[in-house]
């Protein structure tokens, strides 16, 4: 068993992975990615792009599909690891609060403490799906080669740009329905989201990635990181009272 520290921040490291972890790159060059990893990555990105388009994943069909994609991707990741002959476990300190939160929920559920046990079960199931996405994102993107990273930045940039453009055109055209066919309560939708706050939450996550990608291309990641942090901090303060816009769990917020 070996342990290799790769970077203080995964996102920054990923943009500059060639510089930060040359040993890792040489390993990747020598050893092609198992097909299962590639398929899992495609599924993961498809789910993360599809969830906002499916009204932010608030409708039952959407979050069920997300949960199943998460499960399938987990199996693919495990299969890929077996094919590769080694398990590369990427440790993130964020696992600690997430796992604590999940364990707290499970303890409450098993201890019959919640006021509404079955609502708690549903929330736990969705939290489980969200945690799976987080785990998969960390593992599948950390082990991705430089070509995948080169594609990731433009993909996020293109997605954020087109979604923003679509949302603006939809509101400017005065369409009262999402995609011109889905009515929303209160008619306050923005883009594919019933709640405009949630759309803002999604952009809050996508914009820093896009900024890091653009600035990282010019090898000025420290400035990029600062700008990104400033954006996140500003928007997060603004959004603090408005709820979460995470594409994987707004079902809990909206329902």
């Amino acid at each position, binding site marked *: *068993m*070996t*342990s*290799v*520290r*790769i*970077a*203080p*921040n*995964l996102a920054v*490291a990923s943009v500059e992975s060639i510089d930060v972890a040359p040993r890792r790159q040489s390993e990747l060059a020598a050893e092609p990615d198992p097909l299962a990893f590639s398929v899992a990555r495609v599924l993961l990105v498809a789910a993360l792009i599809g969830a906002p388009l499916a009204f932010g994943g608030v409708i*039952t*069909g959407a*979050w*069920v599909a997300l*949960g*199943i994609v*998460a*499960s*399938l991707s*987990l*199996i693919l*990741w*495990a*299969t890929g*690891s*077996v094919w*590769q*002959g*080694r*398990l*590369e*476990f*990427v*440790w*993130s*300190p964020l696992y600690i609060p997430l796992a604590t939160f999940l364990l707290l929920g499970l303890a409450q559920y098993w201890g019959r403490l919640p*006021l*509404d*046990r*079955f*609502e708690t*079960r*549903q929330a736990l*199931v*969705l939290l*489980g*799906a969200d945690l*799976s996405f987080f785990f998969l994102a*960390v593992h599948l993107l*950390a082990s991705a080669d430089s070509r995948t990273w080169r594609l990731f930045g433009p993909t996020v940039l293109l997605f954020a740009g087109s979604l923003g453009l679509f949302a603006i055109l939809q509101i400017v055209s005065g369409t009262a329905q999402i995609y011109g066919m889905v009515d929303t309560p209160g008619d306050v939708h923005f883009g594919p989201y019933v709640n405009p706050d949630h759309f803002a939450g999604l952009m809050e996550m996508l914009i820093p990635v896009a900024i890091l990608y653009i600035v990282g291309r010019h090898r000025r990641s420290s400035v990029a990181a600062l700008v990104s942090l400033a954006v996140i901090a500003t928007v997060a303060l603004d959004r603090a009272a408005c709820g979460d816009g995470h594409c994987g769990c707004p079902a809990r917020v909206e329902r």
Partner: protein
Amino acid sequence: MILRQLDVARIEVSLRGRSRSLPFLLAVGAVSLFLAAQVWVVGIASSFERPSTGRLLLALDSNDPQLQHRLGQVYKDIDPAESVRCLRRATELSRYSRLYWSDLASACQLVGDTQCADQATEHLLKLCPMVPYYHQLAAESYLRKNRLDESLAQFRRLLVLDPTYATDAWAALGSVFDPDLIFQKVLATSVDSGVQVGYVDFLSAEGDNDAAYRIWGFVAANPGRFSLSSVQPYLERLISLGRIEEAAHVWQDLQRLAIVKGPDVEEKDNLVFNGDFEQAPLSAGFDWRTGPTNYLALDFAAPGAYHGAHCLRVDFTVGSNNEYELVNQIVPVHSNRTYSLKAYVRSQDITSTSGPCLRVSDAQQRGFEDAISETTVGTTEWHPVSLSFSTGPETESVRLSLWRPRGRIFPMEITGSFWLDAVTLECKDCAVEK
């Protein structure tokens, strides 16, 4: 050290050999399948559309309140009685879900089981004492059972929690109580003055203007504060209905309560409000209102006044030959009396032969011929313009306006600037009667 713990690290474990890879694959596979199965079951349980699907799932877990609740919703249109049974079972299995109790109350209401609906509503109130809608349900439920005091208490609480329920509350209460009693029992003490004014407007909109004016008397006597915008619909309705005397009293009350700022210097006998343009017009009640302002600019706080600090300035910025009613004001008057209107005006480069002038007409019907002052054209210094008129036998208010008729002699298009100040309207023969 702490920073090192915050780093992202990679740990590698060899999976060569079946003894390692198989347990790993089985463990991850089991977790994934468990997650997929749970998501599937929870998803189906909260979205199935056919009772048969629900029955099938109930066979797996008959004690799942979500399933019972969904089944109750599915049966709602097919079999209301079965819907009530399922929803009741859901509330038994999960006594703290407001969603289940709320749907049970609605379902019971649908089948006409008022006792069940009332019990569900009472339970909802215990669960969620801060949700206004449940207070509304409880208040209406008590009203049906003739438990009037409890109903009034619930309506009072409802209006404190969320005044947007006021119209529904008054409509429900109006079927049982008379307006004065509703005001005394529900609104007089605990509810803010804005809601009380809303009740006056509600009564007026329903056509009960006598009761509305009576209640207005109570509201105006209270020390509570409210905004002009909350009274404005009522005031405008009174003016449009020709209830000028009541409107004038409301306007006086608003000035007394300092909601409308009266003139700093009391001008005895001048009936025009804000005739010196010393404050911004409210476009409401008996203050100045603005007409369409195409191709011109109005400044109600222009310097260089004839009297005081401000005057009205009109700039005809683009040449046109339109008829304009630049500003107007409704003024309460007496019938069969003679009035005299006087104002000071000045002009600069007014091009048309048809310049601005003052006009007085009957606000309700044509009780007398319109009175029109001389026009002002070209460039002039401050000078007085005046007119006099006699009101008709049914005249209660007049419409005083700054008016520009269409020009009929070349040059017809009007450009230039015009100033108006110190507008006064006095009754000539009222003093004799006094």
